[in-house]
């Protein structure tokens, strides 16, 4: 399937993970490991970055907006950055840099050490065993990470906003939710789910196209990160434009 190129490979993987339950006897452990590595072990990094960004938006934005008498716009800015645009991009970029490269390296090394051949010889499909659970795991993990990011980013923003103006928690969140459009959540979820799908497909594809030599692994990694980044930009810009068309602003 690899020999036919990225699109047939992706179609095959997607059809395989739709029927994931058929292969769960061999694939479930890989799915759990992927969610643990991408969705749980990256938690510290994501929480730190989310709180810093939430705090920075308030530190930089609030005094400026307050100076022109538009302090309430800070909720709008928090939503557009943390929930809709910057937040999903940062989370996906962290996952591309951390888990995408790990997938390419791991699968590339498995090709070189004949582990993929061994799976084939046992009648275990490398797509069902290695790729489909990683793709599914990556999508689940990105949704999880994005939830942490939103929670921590907004909480970080709230903590810092108290330094400028004491606002009760209930008021802060009531105003924030008042500014939130349901499409913000939908666009955020579609962005991270699609990004997870593409990052994992691109990383897996490049890992499995390693031929024989260990020196190909870093080369494939560079290609995977480059193409992953392009696909992230296209997904995020495309969906932001769609949001603007649907909601305006």
């Amino acid at each position: 399937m690899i020999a036919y190129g990225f699109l047939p490979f992706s179609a095959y993987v997607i059809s395989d993970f739709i029927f994931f339950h058929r292969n769960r006897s061999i694939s479930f452990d890989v799915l759990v490991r992927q969610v643990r590595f991408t969705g749980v072990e990256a938690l510290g990094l994501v929480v730190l970055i989310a709180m810093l960004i939430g705090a920075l938006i308030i530190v930089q934005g609030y005094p400026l907006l307050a100076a022109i008498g538009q302090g309430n716009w800070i909720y709008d800015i928090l939503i557009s950055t943390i929930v809709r645009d910057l937040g999903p991009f940062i989370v996906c970029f962290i996952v591309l840099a951390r888990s995408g490269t790990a997938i390419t390296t791991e699968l590339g090394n498995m090709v070189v050490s004949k582990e993929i051949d061994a799976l084939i010889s046992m009648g275990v499909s490398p797509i069902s065993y290695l790729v489909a659970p990683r793709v599914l795991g990556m999508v689940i993990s990105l949704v999880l990470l994005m939830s942490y990011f939103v929670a921590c980013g907004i909480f970080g923003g709230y903590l810092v906003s108290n330094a400028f103006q004491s606002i009760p928690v209930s008021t802060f969140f009531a105003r924030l939710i008042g500014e939130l459009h349901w499409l913000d959540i939908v666009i955020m979820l579609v962005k991270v789910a699609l990004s997870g799908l593409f990052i994992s497909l691109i990383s897996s594809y490049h890992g499995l196209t390693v031929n024989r030599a260990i020196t190909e692994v870093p080369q494939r990694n560079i290609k995977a990160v480059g193409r992953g980044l392009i696909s992230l930009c296209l997904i995020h810009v495309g969906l932001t434009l769609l949001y603007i068309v649907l909601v305006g602003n």
Partner: protein
Amino acid sequence: MNIEFKGITHAVKNREVFCDLNAQVSSGQCLVISGRSGCGKTLFFSIASDIIRPDKGQMLIDSVAVNDMNAQKYSEFRRNLGVVFQLSGLISNLTLEENLMLPLNRHYKDVSKPEKQERIRSIAREFALEHYLAQRTEQLSSGQASLAGLARALLLKPKAVVWDAPMAEIDEQWSQYVLDLLLCLKQQGTTLILCSNRKEVIEKLADTQLELNSKVCFSEH
């Protein structure tokens, strides 16, 4: 299991390695593939274990071409073919037990976990690997990894075994044990295809020897 290679022609990067190669091995017989380094032994191993398909020609299992098998028949073929790699081919991020569990989970979904674990412990004992079951396979020595690769191949009691460079990594004492084991398997009707230049393998086990040269020709042993 009768295995027949019919008109196998295969090129690697425009260099023809096999040209119209024909060979056959029946149940309880052993075919040894030998020849100098780079002559295509490992390539033949990959074709015999159906990891790569030849450019032309086909492999027949009990007179049925592998290419023509339906999914169920192919799965059965995979279950009945034990493949042992020169570099063990164990999955490095799994423990030895998880490695051995993989083919059982693939082919015996209905068997209970304790039963599978008992089967694993039993074969691990046979190769003195029972204390390493919880270890990741990258922590095993190359000899132990080779034995573990053999254990994994024999776990499903295959009707045929294909082995690339048998005993290349195994010490003398274990080599003797493995030779006796292969001889025993052969007597029980298991088909063997071994890619090796080792004298003791050829002398003790080979019924047919296929000597690969620059382009394939073969001689009966």
